[in-house]
């Protein structure tokens, strides 16, 4: 089996996603980077499930469904911020600190 290649692909996607979350300052792009990490997770789960049976595929379905719900809520919050501040730059959120 080509398990290695799948795991490498997932690891690269994961790293790109983490890089995006840390570097990007735009709320929507951070959300997209998180989606990359979740897709890395799905690749991992499905690659492993060729060895271990259906569990991983079921898990991947749950991840897809929950990710959709998360993004729905996230975009709503980003929209709320845009309405109040006319910007979705995360660095502009500096009302609370200390």
């Amino acid at each position, binding site marked *: 089996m080509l398990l290695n290649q799948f795991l490498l692909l997932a690891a690269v996607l994961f790293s790109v996603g983490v890089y995006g979350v840390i570097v990007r300052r735009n709320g929507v792009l951070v959300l997209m980077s998180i989606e990359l*990490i979740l897709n890395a997770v799905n690749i991992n789960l499905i690659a492993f499930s060729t060895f*271990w049976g259906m569990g991983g595929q079921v*898990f991947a379905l749950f991840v897809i469904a929950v990710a959709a719900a998360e993004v729905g809520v996230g975009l709503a919050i980003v929209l709320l*911020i845009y309405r109040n501040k006319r910007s979705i730059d995360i660095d502009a959120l500096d009302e609370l600190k200390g």
Partner: protein
Amino acid sequence: MSLAAQLVAQVGAPVSFRGPTIDYHALAPEIVLSAAVVVLVLLDSIKLERAKAYMPVVTNLALLGALIPLLTLAYDGGTRALFGGSYVVGPMPLMLKAMFIVTTYVVVLLSTNYMAEGDYWESEYYTLLVSSLLGMVVMASSRDLIGIFVALELLSIPAYMLASWRKGDVRSNEAGLKYFLMGVFASAVLLYGMSLVYGLGGSTRLEDIGRVLADAPTDGVPVVTLALVFVVIGFAFKVSAVPFHVWAPDTYEGAPTPVTTFLAVASKAAGFVALISLVFYAFLPRADIIEPLFFVLAIGSMTVGNLAALRQTNVVRMLAYSGIAHAGFMLAPFVVAGSNPFRSMQSIVVYLVIYAAMNLGAFACVIAMARQTRSAELKDLAGVVRSMPGLAWCMVLFLASLIGMPPLGGWYAKFGVFKVVVGAETGLGYATAIIMAINTAIAAYYYLNVAKTMIFDDPPEGAPVRAPRTPPSLAAAIAISLVATFAFGILPGLLTNVTSYGPLALGG
């Protein structure tokens, strides 16, 4: 053969699906709460404006209704394993479920006036609160990676919305977005760890994973370490352990205070419950990896949390940092998880329950006092003992409990953790105990500083002599927390009897 006959042959032949047998009694609390969510949504959409007044009442009745099956299950005793051991209902899950439900009950009491007096969306608030509670209740029983993940998201997603509840207020929006981004990133990292754990363990059930990890203790060490570190880091965000705590003070300050209470008490406890399940049911064979990891998290959290709390001028923010420090104390028993799993688990659960009681009380007092002072800044609370003597003295009691003074509950929680950590007789255990002792002393300073400001300082100019009457729901919330704080301090056996009862040991 015709096409239809072929299809029938294919569908009918080899695979026959049989649904699992479901123990409805064991699932009754979850069913009641799910029904409550549906009823609240329907009530909101049918009665609209008129429904607002009923919402808190219906919510609280539903929560009490969910407590009844918990009592009957506890009376029945024993451990029920559902879905092939993926969902376990035993003494410890029952107690944790009861804690979550009572905590949410108190949070609803705190919210009733707050939501009605402020400019808030009321009806949806209670729906989301119960949805989040449902996630926590599921979390208490889950013994499966999928179950834990779904429960985590079910409790988090409503909480993101609750944190940004003040739609027009930029501070609340900011609190919500910070909480959301941190939470989602943490759950993504957690999932990556879980996918590796699944690959190593060959199953999503914690029990099977634990068995595989125990059978192959030296195989694939780097991957095991990576997987365990990712999973623990994911939950470290949830329980706001240092260095993954940065969201907590901002979110706590910006969110509406009853929501802050819910996040600081219930949501954090749910994160700990998940950690307990994962560590004690699956990762225990690799204690060599998790113990140092938790050592760093525990001492980091208590030290950084306490030092940052020292220089806070806002009481809610101070309680946020104190919550980080308490999370460090709750993480400490994990450092000796390998030497005495049962005792460590027990001390964490006892700490969680007592911490919930005293922290709820402290937040309830802050909310009640802020009705008059209109802020939670420390300088505005100066001399409140003159206008609100009852509230001020209750607050002092809760602060004393947070310090860990007997006979209030806090002392027993801390004592239990010390006993376990020292009793393990490991180097890391002793080191943790010393750092804990130093931190207990540091923490006393800022709690006592709040007490001093409230009692001995002069009130600011123009403060009213008599405060407005505390509404009955707030008074009830404070009374419940006070009774629980005292009861657990004077009769700690109430908790230890439950946690040591029955087959709580591993696999139970």
